[in-house]
């Protein structure tokens, strides 16, 4: 029985392979010189180097936040390689290395436009990021016909410097927090997306982040700008090889939503979670924030978090425009020794703003899973509304489920409502499934998927299917 279980748990992370590809690195460690080197490799303008150096100086003055309900291992920031990229074939600089193409194919990420158009793969434009660089961005031409810019962050800096400069760090300032400052100093690549006025993006856009090299961290930066009246659905996925040591992922995502625009941001986070003894796994410490800048703008966050050894993540929205609205739908599943401290902030500044928070936490094994949130109604947020529902499900007696919301109201015409429940997985439901011949592990997967349905059904179709499988797979070994 133990052997069988072991086999399942070792099998469960199917994305844990390593791609054998020649890479170039900057030396280990973090200093002004390293930052200058990264900036030079990327051929960046002076203003961006200045931005990085300013962030680095801020970061040096800061200390890592300790308020999370997390037992975070000490990170030696001098023991990380901040830039790693597959070497370009000098004879064929425009083509994707076949080893990389194969990697993304294995991960189910469609990099071939032809296959997508033939209907073999679903119609999604992808920016594929491998360690510190974007290897390709598909459907750029198709999108460009509508005036949509979708490219790697580095290319955006080169080709659209005024746009990047206008919006960079306007939502997450360089000194926002310890990890955001670190990212601002060393960020390597990521995706940039601009949807012009009144344009409805004809296909879903996505970024796929792959960590491959050992001893490195990934520090990508994503900037999405939806101009007035535009619409876009954006998806983010990520995986990494199985390794015994932790790897750091400190990303920043900034989203600007202008008047009447609509952005839907979905994440399926499947970084390597570490093994069943808590060895290895990604430390996922990210800052994601959007601003609903204009009247009637809308930003929706949907996340399914199953991976990472540690998750510290709070996709948040500043509701500045009158009558703007935002949602946060989250499923966070932790198993074995995983730890998650995740949630959202909804800051209501504008009149008639609305927000909704639905969070489903699932804890199994020895894991710790926390919801942390802030809902704030400022004095000018006349008639604003928030509703939050945070549920936690416990599977097994050795895990923990915690809820730490803060609600603040300074506006007598605003209403904030928060409800939370914590309970264990229903034995009646389990028995019912068992009686109908469904094995315990499968039954747990089924029940958890039902529990998370309200969130899962917000995901784009193909993402939802993937997320459902992930929830079941991630729970393997949770029933002894």
């Amino acid at each position, binding site marked *: 029985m133990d052997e069988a279980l072991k086999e399942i748990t070792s099998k469960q992370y199917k994305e844990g392979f390593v791609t054998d590809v020649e890479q170039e690195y900057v030396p280990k460690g973090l200093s002004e010189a390293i930052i200058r080197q990264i900036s030079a490799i990327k051929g960046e303008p002076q203003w961006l180097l200045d931005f990085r150096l300013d962030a680095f100086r801020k970061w040096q003055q800061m200390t890592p936040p300790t308020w999370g*309900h997390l037992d975070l291992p000490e990170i030696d920031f001098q023991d990380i390689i901040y830039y790693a990229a597959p070497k370009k074939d000098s004879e064929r600089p425009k083509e994707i290395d076949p080893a990389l193409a194969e990697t993304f194919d294995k991960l189910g990420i469609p990099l071939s436009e032809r296959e997508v158009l033939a209907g073999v793969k679903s119609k999604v434009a992808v920016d594929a990021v491998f360690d510190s660089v974007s290897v390709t961005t598909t459907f750029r031409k198709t999108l460009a016909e509508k005036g949509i810019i979708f490219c790697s962050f580095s290319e955006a800096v080169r080709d659209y410097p005024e746009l990047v400069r206008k919006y960079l760090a306007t939502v997450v300032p360089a000194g926002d927090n310890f990890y955001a400052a670190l990212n601002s100093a060393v960020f390597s690549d990521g995706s940039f997306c601009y949807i012009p006025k009144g344009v409805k993006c004809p296909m879903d856009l996505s970024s796929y982040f792959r960590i491959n090299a050992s001893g490195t961290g990934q520090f990508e930066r994503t900037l999405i700008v939806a101009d007035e009246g535009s619409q876009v659905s954006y998806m983010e996925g990520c995986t990494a090889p199985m390794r015994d040591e932790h790897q750091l992922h400190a990303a920043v995502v900034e989203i600007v939503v202008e008047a009447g625009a609509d952005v839907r941001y979905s994440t399926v986070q499947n970084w390597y979670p570490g093994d069943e003894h808590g060895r290895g796994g990604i430390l996922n410490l990210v800052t994601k924030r959007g601003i609903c800048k204009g009247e009637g703008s809308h930003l929706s966050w949907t996340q399914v978090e199953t991976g990472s050894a540690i998750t510290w993540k709070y996709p948040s929205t500043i509701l500045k425009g009158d009558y703007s609205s935002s949602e946060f739908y989250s499923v966070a599943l932790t198993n074995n020794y995983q730890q998650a401290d995740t949630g959202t902030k909804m800051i209501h500044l504008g009149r008639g703003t609305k927000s909704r928070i639905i969070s489903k936490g699932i804890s199994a094994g020895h894991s710790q899973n926390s919801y942390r949130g802030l809902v704030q*109604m400022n*004095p000018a947020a006349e008639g604003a509304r928030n509703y939050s529902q945070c549920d*936690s499900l*416990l*599977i*097994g*007696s*050795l*895990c*923990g*489920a*915690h*809820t*730490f*919301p*803060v*609600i*603040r*109201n*300074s*506006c*007598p*015409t*605003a*209403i*904030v*409502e*928060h*409800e*939370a*429940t*914590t*309970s*264990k997985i229903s034995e009646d439901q389990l028995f019912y499934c068992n009686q109908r011949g469904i094995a315990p592990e499968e039954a747990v997967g089924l029940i958890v998927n039902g529990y998370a349905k309200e969130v899962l059904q917000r995901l784009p179709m193909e993402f939802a299917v993937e997320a459902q499988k992930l929830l079941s797979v991630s729970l393997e070994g949770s029933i002894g």
Partner: protein
Amino acid sequence: MDKVFVIGRDEIPSKVVLGAGESLRATFVALPGASAHLSLTVELTGEGAELDAAGLFVCREAENVSIEMNVRHLAGRCRSNQMFRGIADGRSRVRFNGLIYVEQDAQKTEAYQSCHSLLLSEGARVETDPQLEIYADDVVCSHGAAIGYPSADELFYMRSRGIPEQEARRLQIISFLSPVLSRLPEEFYSLIGFQS
């Protein structure tokens, strides 16, 4: 019967320990006109211990009220219930911080907490931090918190019956506070400014 404590006037212990089979039923009141601070830890250390706590705050001017409740389930089969209701008017400041903690061995715990406030003026502020920290799995725990204003439909219903607006608003506040108010002796109606 309830033990009633007026915060800031009556002596309130900072920690109460409830052993097996023991129970406490208490109501804490922050009266209008005075700032008040309550910090109370209740530990349920024996099987079957029960806590039934309620609290009321009525702030009309510039009161500063803070309430910190730390309810710790350290043994199994205990129950706790906390219910707070209050209003913040004028330039008052209210902060409620309530933790339900359930230790790994405290199976079969039932723990509930609610804190509902009405924010009645632009100058007032209410912050509510309800928290659940749970390490046992066979539990039923919940918290609910809301900060809002009286219902317009309710107000219209009363006015349509001929109840003048001011009186209707008074009744609405009594209605809102009633789950806690009903646990208090009659004289509290006038102490908190609601002659019945």
